């Protein structure tokens, strides 16, 4: 208390001393300039361009600067779009639930059941090993496992458990969800692990002292305190799944649709303004989802 009270007094006592080290009012702007430039050039500018282009007119060969809302009415008026959005949200929901469940338990195991910090770090790095290869390679490596004559099917047939290979293993929604869970679980593990590591271990002892059983400690102490990490992981996973097109394309064999895949197809037909309008709608939707998550969980403690 006393320290907090004294601090402004000291600052006020030496105004001249403080001023000598600053260079007027420009300094804070100069200090924030590099990040502002990078964000402006690589985030803000592209988004503005997409928004602008989404109002343009186009035909099979070129785009014409204009201010039309037909792109939006086309996007929102077509039942294909609505179906695609629903399908994408369905993927996001299933993948989110699975990654949250798996991610929490992996993080919990790492944080509470591995005793030495060195071993924790080793195992955590093992979790990141798949990231040494690209997304596409990790995805494609599922094909020899899940395919008609793949590892699983040939094993099952060989053991006589199924009469003929299971068809829905590859090129199906199951395959899409499986690959996405594989790709994105680590994005859930990392923030949850981080929050779990910050939980004071004496809180667990205090709960035990108050007579809590293992599950009660988990439910009443650990999960509430892990919520910010879960929220951050949720934001990662939801935004990644909502914007995914390669996994959906490769793993569904073209039988499933996602919003990003729809945009990619529009772009390959040179319908850039239509794709841009779609992108704006998707961006708004994802931002609404993130805003919803932030309303439920206060993640400021983590940042």
């Amino acid at each position, binding site marked *: 208390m006393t320290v907090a009270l004294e601090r402004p007094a000291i600052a006020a006592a030496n105004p001249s001393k403080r001023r000598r080290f600053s260079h007027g009012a420009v300094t804070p702007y100069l200090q924030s300039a590099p990040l502002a430039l990078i964000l402006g050039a690589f985030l803000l500018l592209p988004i503005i361009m997409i928004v602008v282009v989404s109002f343009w007119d186009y035909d099979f060969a070129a785009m014409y600067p204009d201010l039309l809302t037909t792109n939006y009415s086309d996007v929102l008026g077509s039942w294909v779009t609505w179906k695609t959005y629903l399908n994408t949200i369905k993927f996001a929901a299933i993948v989110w639930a699975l990654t949250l469940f798996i991610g929490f338990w992996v993080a919990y195991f790492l944080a509470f059941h591995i005793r030495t910090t060195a071993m924790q770090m080793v195992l955590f790095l093992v979790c990141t090993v798949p990231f040494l290869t690209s997304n596409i390679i990790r995805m494609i490596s599922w094909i020899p496992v899940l395919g008609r004559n793949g590892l699983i099917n040939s094993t099952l047939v060989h053991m006589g458990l199924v009469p003929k290979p299971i068809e829905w293993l590859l090129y199906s929604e199951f395959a899409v969800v499986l690959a996405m869970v594989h790709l994105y679980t680590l994005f859930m593990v990392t923030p949850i692990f981080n929050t779990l590591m910050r939980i004071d271990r004496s809180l667990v002892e*205090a709960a*035990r*002292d108050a007579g809590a059983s293992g599950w009660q400690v988990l439910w009443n102490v650990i999960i509430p305190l892990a919520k910010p990490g879960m929220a951050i992981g949720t934001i990662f996973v939801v935004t990644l799944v909502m914007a995914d097109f390669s996994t959906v394309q490769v793993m569904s064999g073209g039988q499933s649709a996602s919003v990003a895949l729809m945009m990619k197809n529009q772009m390959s037909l040179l319908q850039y303004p239509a794709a841009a309008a779609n992108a704006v709608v998707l961006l708004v939707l994802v931002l609404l989802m993130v805003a919803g998550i932030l309303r439920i969980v206060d993640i400021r403690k983590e940042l």
Partner: protein
Amino acid sequence: MSKAAEIDIVSVSKVYGMTTAVEAISLKIPAGTYCCLLGPSGCGKTSTLRMIAGHESISSGDVRLGNTVVTDLPPAKRGTAMMFQSYALFPHLDLVDNVAFSLKMKGVDKEQRRAKALDMLKLMQMEAYATRRPAQLSGGQQQRVALARALITDPEALLLDEPLSALDPFLKIRMRAELKKLQTSLGITFVHVTHSQEEAMALADLIVVMNDGRIEQAAPPREVFERPATAFVARFMGDHNVISGRVTCERDGMVVFDVNGGGSLAACGRGQEAGASIDIAIRTDHVRIGEPPSPGLGFTGIVSNIEYRGATVKLSITGAGIDDFTVIIDDSDFFARPVALGDAVPLAWDSEDAIVLGRIHS
């Protein structure tokens, strides 16, 4: 409010791998006692407390609380409650839910447990803050909440792990008084771990001085201070000069010994073999400037430092093979006959002030 329980620790040890944190200690804490486990860090006092609480398994030996052997019981079944060093309040719950936590775990319904928690907060004069989160409280307030949370289980013994160490010095003294008052009014057994001898003396009915996983002395504060059992206790409690030497002979009920490389001193005591090593303690405030009443009860040394402390003056004296002998004298005595740095002064004490110390590690 609730019955107090006697705590009986019977040759309890705690071994971590190759190191022994607590070595076969035995201790009886009578019901309703305020007991302080006192010692430097790493002496095993916290391990001992955690073994009583059930947060640390007991390697060997038994702990009895009242009439039950609690060695293998989980913490909540022992009738003890623990207050943690950093209070360990749940940051995501408000004060009422923090205090009501153990009732919630027992399945008491919401209205009932919140009402009881509010009563407990009232007892701690914290009801005005009931809906706040722990992070919005000061250290002293957090401590009151932690106490309320521990006491809501109606424990027979309250175990406190360095409860005052997180507070600033002024608050420390205030909360200390509150703890003592609380213990007196509740009448339950308190076991309080601390490394501050001042805190232990102010609070305890029974001080247990620990070192290296063993108990050096367990006695009321006055006895620990006036008749320290070992050199460690005398040094740790402070305000004592500890002098080591070798026994030469026994004369008139006094042991005479040679200080290593110095003079010859005497102390009350008997049964010491010639040649055995011996430690004695002399209270710094029981030494006076002047010729000793009989040989061996004083020496002459050079003043190496003088510190004025207001009511008293602290002199550091070197001589007779003793490096740093501290003398505390009243300011009026000092200024009536001042001494200067480098002066040779005769020091003396009474025969009953030279206490022969035991050794437990020999």
